[in-house]
């Protein structure tokens, strides 16, 4: 087994195989050609891909032999009484005790207890009493973030755009909005609603799980109390509060990296460059951390397109809509281009590959 980057694109899943230094990467031919791979992850030797096709719909593809053969989840869908039909599969998150979670649009969460063969919709999300106040963002009403407290698997979080952050303390049965202090500036009559916020990416810190980070449509936020209260972290060096992905240090909860964009109306990286900004003081200050990244670029890095490993020093991985993958083997301090000219990149994840 060796380290690999799983790059989901609009034209299949690419696997980048790296050396131990994480400096040289080899692009392997695409898997799942013809499928939009919104997210792919490896877990216990199985590859799972949230795969969508504009004609044939949404499914989860899984491979137990690293892409040589695939099985898809048949019968993935929403119950008739919901009045909803499945639009897109967005994100597969391995849980505890073999449970898998799938985030989907419109505003849906599924769980699987049979390694992804069959999926049951989570009623607590599907029938959430605030659902009539949720609205789709530009990418549809997507459940894109699923986070599980590593110390207490009963505590979970989801991020749905644009519904906000929800927390469960009973293993996913019931869900409470956790959006206090996060803004919905696009709702001028009530910019701090209970729900309706446009969370773009939500992460729980692996070493301090009561600390949450989120990149939102309206700012970058940190919570130190499991999402009860959020602090907006703007100014202090960030050129913009708008952006999509966020990455964390696997051990130091004060370190985070974001990729700011000009704004909602002009979704390109700020200041005409591909700029990663890093904080080492829990978001009080940010500095450009882009050595090796293009200095003349109008790129876009989607919400699933930045990832990090747990090595020391930790590596950071990002992919652009223009088909480039960049890797920093040293915590964002320097970057190398690992691949270019790929199709538009929808997701980047690190995994073990045989």
């Amino acid at each position, binding site marked *: 087994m060796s380290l690999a980057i799983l790059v989901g694109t609009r034209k299949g899943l690419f696997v980048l195989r790296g050396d131990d230094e994480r400096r040289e990467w080899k692009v392997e031919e695409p898997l799942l050609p013809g499928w939009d791979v919104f997210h792919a992850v490896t877990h216990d030797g199985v590859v799972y891909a949230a795969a969508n*096709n504009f004609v044939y719909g949404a499914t989860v593809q899984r491979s137990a032999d690293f892409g040589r053969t695939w099985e898809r989840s048949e019968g993935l869908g929403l119950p008739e009484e919901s009045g909803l*039909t499945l639009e897109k599969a967005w994100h597969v998150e391995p849980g505890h005790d073999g449970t898998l979670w799938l985030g989907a649009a419109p505003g849906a969460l599924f769980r699987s207890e049979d390694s992804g063969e069959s999926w049951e919709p989570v009623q607590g999300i599907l029938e959430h009493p605030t659902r009539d106040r949720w609205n789709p963002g530009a990418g549809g009403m997507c459940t894109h973030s699923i986070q599980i407290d590593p110390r207490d698997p009963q505590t979970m979080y989801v991020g749905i755009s644009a519904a906000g952050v929800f927390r469960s303390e009973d293993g996913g049965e019931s869900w409470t909005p956790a959006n206090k202090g996060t803004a919905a500036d696009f709702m001028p009559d009530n910019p701090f609603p209970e729900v309706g916020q446009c969370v773009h990416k939500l992460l729980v810190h692996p070493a301090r799980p009561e600390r949450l980070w989120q990149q939102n449509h309206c700012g970058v936020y940190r919570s130190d109390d499991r999402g009860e209260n959020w602090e907006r972290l703007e100014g202090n060096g960030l050129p913009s509060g708008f952006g999509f992905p966020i990455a964390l240090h696997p051990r130091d909860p004060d370190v985070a990296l974001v990729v700011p964009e000009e704004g909602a109306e002009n979704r390109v990286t700020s200041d005409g460059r591909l700029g990663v900004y890093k904080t080492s003081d829990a978001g009080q200050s940010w500095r450009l951390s882009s050595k090796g990244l293009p200095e003349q670029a109008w790129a876009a890095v989607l919400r699933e397109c930045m990832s990090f490993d747990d090595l020391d020093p930790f590596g950071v991985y990002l992919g652009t809509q223009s088909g480039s993958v960049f890797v920093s083997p040293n915590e964002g301090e320097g970057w190398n281009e690992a691949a270019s000219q790929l199709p538009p990149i929808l997701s980047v994840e690190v995994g073990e590959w045989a």
Partner: protein
Amino acid sequence: MPSLLAEQARGQKEFEVEAPTIGAALRALPLRDLLFDERDELRPLVNVYVDGEDARERGGLEAELRGGETVRVVAAIAGG
């Protein structure tokens, strides 16, 4: 079957099925979930031809098959 669908059926492009209607023939395939949504509606960008004629001209999926027809699935021209 288009090649993307064939790939989802372990490379099989052609199937022989016995079915009373066009819809029943499609539902008998191991690709049913890709052709129909969870409400059992044919996905809107899937076109079906029977002996070269659009299935809609024959009365849609409920139209009867007499036997020996060739049913062809074609994806709508769209995308990017």
